[in-house]
C-alpha cells in the first residue's frame, strides 16, 4: 500500500449561496486548492466528486464541475454516502493513489441545496432512511431520526436538553471565528432552550442549517507529494461501516444500555486498528477532531462511539468543557456542521480542510489564535456520518508518514 498525502486544500464560504451555481461554487474551493498546491487543473489525473444532489438541477454534477474546473478529459465519478459523501469520496481517491493507479487526484465535495425551497430540502433528507417502511407512512424527518437517539439517551443516562444546548453554544462560539462559516453569531444556552421544537426533544438550535458549500482536496502519492510541499498531511487510516436502513433494526442502540451508532464504533475500531491506536484511550492520540454534529446529540454520541470517553460519560466531557480548545480533545473548533454549516456532500472534505489547516498550524491565520489547536501528537480525526449511522467513515490524518 502506497502512502497518500493531502497536498492542497480549498474551501468556499458556506451559507445560502444564491450568488452562485453549482459549478461556480465548486470552483471557489478548487481554485483555492490548486493555488495552495501551486498546481494547475491539467495536472490532476482524476476527479472524484462527492455530491448527494436531488435538491439541485444538475444531475451529473461531476461532469458539470469537471468542465468548469478544467480537469477534462481526465476520468471522474460521483460518490454518495449521504452526509458522509465527502469522506467516501476521499476514501475512493485515497485508494486510487494508494493502489498506484494514479499519482494526483482532486477530491471535490460540493452541494447546492438552495436550488430548491427549504421544505423540499427537508422532505428529501427525510426520505433518506428506509423510504418504504419509515417515510411513506410515518413521515420521518432527519431531525426525528436523531431525536429517537436523543430520547433513548435521555431515558438511559439522564441527559438533559440543557446539556445538548452546551454543544451548540461551543460550536457557534468557534464558528464565530471561522470566516468560511455560515453562522457568525455566538449564542447562549437560552438561545437554544428558547427555540422551537423541530422533533422533540430536539429544537431549532440543536440542528445544523441547510447549506450551500464546497471543499476541495488534492491527494498525492509520496514521491509526487515530496515535490509539491514540505508539509504533506498523510492519510494515516480510513475506517468505514454501514448501518441498517431501518432504525428499528439497530440492536445495540435499542437493546443495550447504549445510545450510539454501531457503524461509527465499527468504523472507528477499523481506523484505530490500522493506525495502531488504542480504542479505550483514543482521545490522547489526537490534537484535534471534527465529528459529525448534524444535531447536538450526534456530537455527544460521537464522543462515546470514538472512544473519547466511556458509554454514558459523554455528558461529563460537555459539562467540563473538555472538548473546547485546550481541553482533553478539541472537537469541532471550526464550528462543526452545527454552525459552520452542512452542505451534505461537502462536509467530509470540509472536515479534512479544517484538520489539514490545523495540523499545518495555518488555522490561526484563518480563524485566529483561539481556534488553533496545539499540535503535539501531529494527529487529527474526522468522523463523518451518513444518515443516522447508515454510513460511517472515520479518517485519521497525520504529520507522520504511515509506513516507514
Amino acid at each position: 500500500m502506497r502512502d497518500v498525502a493531502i497536498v492542497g486544500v480549498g474551501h468556499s464560504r458556506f451559507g445560502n449561496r444564491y450568488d452562485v451555481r453549482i459549478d461556480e461554487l465548486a470552483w471557489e474551493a478548487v481554485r483555492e486548492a490548486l493555488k495552495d498546491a501551486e498546481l494547475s487543473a491539467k495536472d490532476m489525473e482524476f476527479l472524484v466528486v462527492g455530491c448527494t444532489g436531488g435538491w439541485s438541477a444538475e444531475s451529473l454534477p461531476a461532469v458539470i464541475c469537471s468542465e468548469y474546473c478544467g480537469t477534462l478529459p481526465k476520468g471522474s465519478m460521483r460518490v454518495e454516502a449521504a452526509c458522509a459523501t465527502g469522506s467516501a469520496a476521499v476514501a475512493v481517491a485515497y485508494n486510487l493513489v494508494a493502489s498506484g493507479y494514479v499519482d494526483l487526484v482532486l477530491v471535490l465535495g460540493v452541494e447546492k441545496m438552495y436550488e430548491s425551497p427549504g421544505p423540499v430540502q427537508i422532505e428529501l433528507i427525510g426520505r433518506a432512511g428506509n423510504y418504504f417502511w419509515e417515510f411513506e407512512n410515518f413521515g420521518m424527518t432527519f431531525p426525528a431520526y436523531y431525536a429517537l437517539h436523543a430520547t433513548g439517551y435521555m431515558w438511559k443516562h439522564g441527559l438533559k436538553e440543557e446539556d445538548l444546548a452546551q454543544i451548540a453554544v461551543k460550536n457557534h462560539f468557534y464558528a464565530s471565528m471561522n470566516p468560511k462559516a455560515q453562522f457568525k453569531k455566538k449564542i447562549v444556552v437560552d438561545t437554544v432552550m428558547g427555540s422551537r421544537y423541530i422533533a422533540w426533544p430536539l429544537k431549532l438550535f440543536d440542528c445544523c442549517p441547510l447549506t450551500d458549500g464546497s471543499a476541495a482536496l488534492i491527494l498525492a502519492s509520496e514521491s509526487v507529494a515530496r515535490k509539491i510541499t514540505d508539509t504533506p498531511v498523510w492519510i494515516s487510516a480510513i475506517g468505514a461501516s454501514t448501518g441498517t436502513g431501518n432504525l428499528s433494526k439497530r440492536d445495540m442502540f435499542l437493546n443495550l444500555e447504549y445510545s450510539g451508532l454501531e457503524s461509527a464504533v465499527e468504523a472507528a475500531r477499523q481506523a484505530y486498528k490500522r493506525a495502531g491506536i488504542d480504542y479505550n484511550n483514543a482521545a490522547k492520540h489526537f490534537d484535534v477532531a471534527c465529528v459529525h454534529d448534524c444535531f447536538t446529540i450526534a456530537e455527544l454520541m460521537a464522543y462515546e462511539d470514538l472512544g473519547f470517553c466511556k458509554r454514558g460519560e459523554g455528558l461529563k466531557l460537555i459539562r467540563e468543557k473538555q472538548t473546547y480548545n485546550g481541553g482533553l480533545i478539541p472537537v469541532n473548533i471550526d464550528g462543526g456542521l452545527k454552525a459552520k454549516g452542512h452542505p451534505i456532500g461537502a462536509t467530509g472534505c470540509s472536515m479534512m480542510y479544517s484538520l489539514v489547516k490545523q495540523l499545518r498550524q495555518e488555522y490561526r491565520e484563518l480563524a485566529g489564535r483561539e481556534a488553533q489547536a496545539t499540535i503535539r501528537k501531529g494527529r487529527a480525526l474526522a468522523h463523518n456520518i451518513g444518515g443516522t449511522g447508515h454510513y460511517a467513515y472515520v479518517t485519521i490524518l497525520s504529520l507522520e508518514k504511515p509506513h516507514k
Partner: protein
Amino acid sequence: MSDLAKKSIKEKGLPLIEEPKTKLPLYISLRELSLRYHFGTAKIQTFFEGLKEGKVYMTRCRKCDEKFFPPQADCPKCLESDMEWIPLSGEGELLTCTMITVKPSTFAHYDNYIVGIAQMKEGVRVLAWLQIDDPRKIKPKMKVRLTTVRREPEHFITYEFAPM
C-alpha cells in the same frame, strides 16, 4: 409555471426574480418535475393482505430461524427464500420516541405526530406512529399495543401503536 415566474416573465421577459432576502437574481425553472413512486409488493403481498384482516405480519426463515420485520421474502443468511409468515401479537414495549413538529411537505396536513420504536414480544422491533392523548404520559419501556388503523383523511390502512 409558478405565479412568481409568470409575473416576472410578464414584467421583464424572463422568469428571473429577486431573491427576497439577498436581493440576488434567481432564475425560476419552468420545468416542474413531479415524482410519485410505485412499488412492486408481489413478494410480500401477504403483509398487505394481512393489513386488510387487521394483522401485522413478520417473516421467519424456515431454514435458519432468522426473523424479519419489516417482513422480507429472502434470507441473506442462508441464501434461501422459504419464509413463514407470522402475525404479530401486538404486544410491545416502547424503546424510544419523538414528536415531529416540522413536517415534510407531504405530511403537512396531519397534526403533529409521535413516532416510536417498540420491542415486540416476537423478538422483532417495529417503528410506527404512537397515538396517545397526552405526550406527557409517555414513559420509558411503557407497554404499547400494535394494531391496524385507518389513517385519515386518506382513509388507508396502516399500523400504529397505542398505550396498553
